[in-house]
């Protein structure tokens, strides 16, 4: 079973990973975006790590709702409302249980991913974070490690795609050949999840 501490550690691990990879995320965002993905997301997850350490939410759902709220209020770019919605909706779907099973978490995360698709209007294949998150949720039924691999493969597989959402979509054909920064940071989020689970 996964308790609030597990989710707090997941958020902290994500902050560490995003901090470590911030320059790479920004470099990926330079040719097809506005070169702020790494710095925006680092600011957001640093705020998340601070908030969960200070407020110590007591349920898995409360951890993710708090994390999502902090992202929406601190990021300053499109990744704020998108990741914020992902975590808040996932957290709300978990309800106020003190512990959740991996299967319950998988279903909740699917609710969160669906909410991100509804918010941004992106579908799989549009070269967005969805291309890492959807395969990750599908693989999560198997294991955290499988989800990590699926997310990383999904992120890499965005390279030949043409962007259909966000600023990169204005570039049309020129967006082809670049790995999507949002899919890459989504893979970091899922990798941190697997790391937290010890897989």
């Amino acid at each position, binding site marked *: 079973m996964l308790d609030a501490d597990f989710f707090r550690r997941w958020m902290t691990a994500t902050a560490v990973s995003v901090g470590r990879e911030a320059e790479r995320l920004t470099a990926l965002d330079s040719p097809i975006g506005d070169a702020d993905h790494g710095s925006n997301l680092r600011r957001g997850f640093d705020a998340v790590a601070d908030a969960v350490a200070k407020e110590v939410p007591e349920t898995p759902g409360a951890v993710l709702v708090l994390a999502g*709220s902090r992202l929406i209020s601190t990021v300053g770019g499109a990744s704020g*409302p998108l990741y914020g919605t992902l975590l808040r909706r996932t957290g709300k779907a978990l309800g106020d249980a003190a512990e959740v099973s991996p299967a319950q978490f998988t279903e909740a995360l699917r609710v969160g991913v669906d909410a991100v698709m509804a918010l941004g209007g992106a579908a799989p294949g549009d070269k967005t974070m969805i291309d890492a998150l959807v395969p990750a949720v599908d693989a999560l039924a198997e294991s955290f490690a499988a989800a990590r691999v699926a997310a990383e493969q999904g992120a890499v597989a965005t390279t030949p795609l043409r962007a259909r959402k966000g600023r990169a979509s204005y570039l049309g054909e020129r967006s082809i050949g670049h790995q999507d920064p949002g899919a890459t940071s989504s893979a970091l989020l899922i990798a941190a999840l697997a790391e937290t689970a010890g897989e």
Partner: protein
Amino acid sequence: MSDDSRLRSGEPLVGVVLVSHSAAVAASVADLARALVGGGATVPVAAAGGTRSGELGTSAELITAAARSVDRGAGVAVLTDLGSAVLTVKALLAEGDELPDGTRLVDAPFVEGAVAAVVTASTGAGLAAVEAAASEAYTYRKT
């Protein structure tokens, strides 16, 4: 209640919030819209541009503060420019309880929609009419 009687009876006006990635754009469009009102009532208009640290981007906190500052109880029409401005307002409306009741994201071109919204609000029109006027700005062709 007709628009005129709404004004005469001192009914509150709809508030307008302008959200841009750029503080200068949001403030200037607010100025432009106010200047074009002419003789109407003074509409509560607030700009929420850029981030709190003055950079380009979107701030949920600035948006929330702006919406609260123009809320007179008749609803708040929020107009946005691009990407994260749209997504942040949508996320705040869908997820949070920070925005005042009766806050609505209006699907409209930013500059033309802002002028239409503020001018319409200055007549004492309700939120639905303000929203319709702003959206209708999409139909004005330039060629």
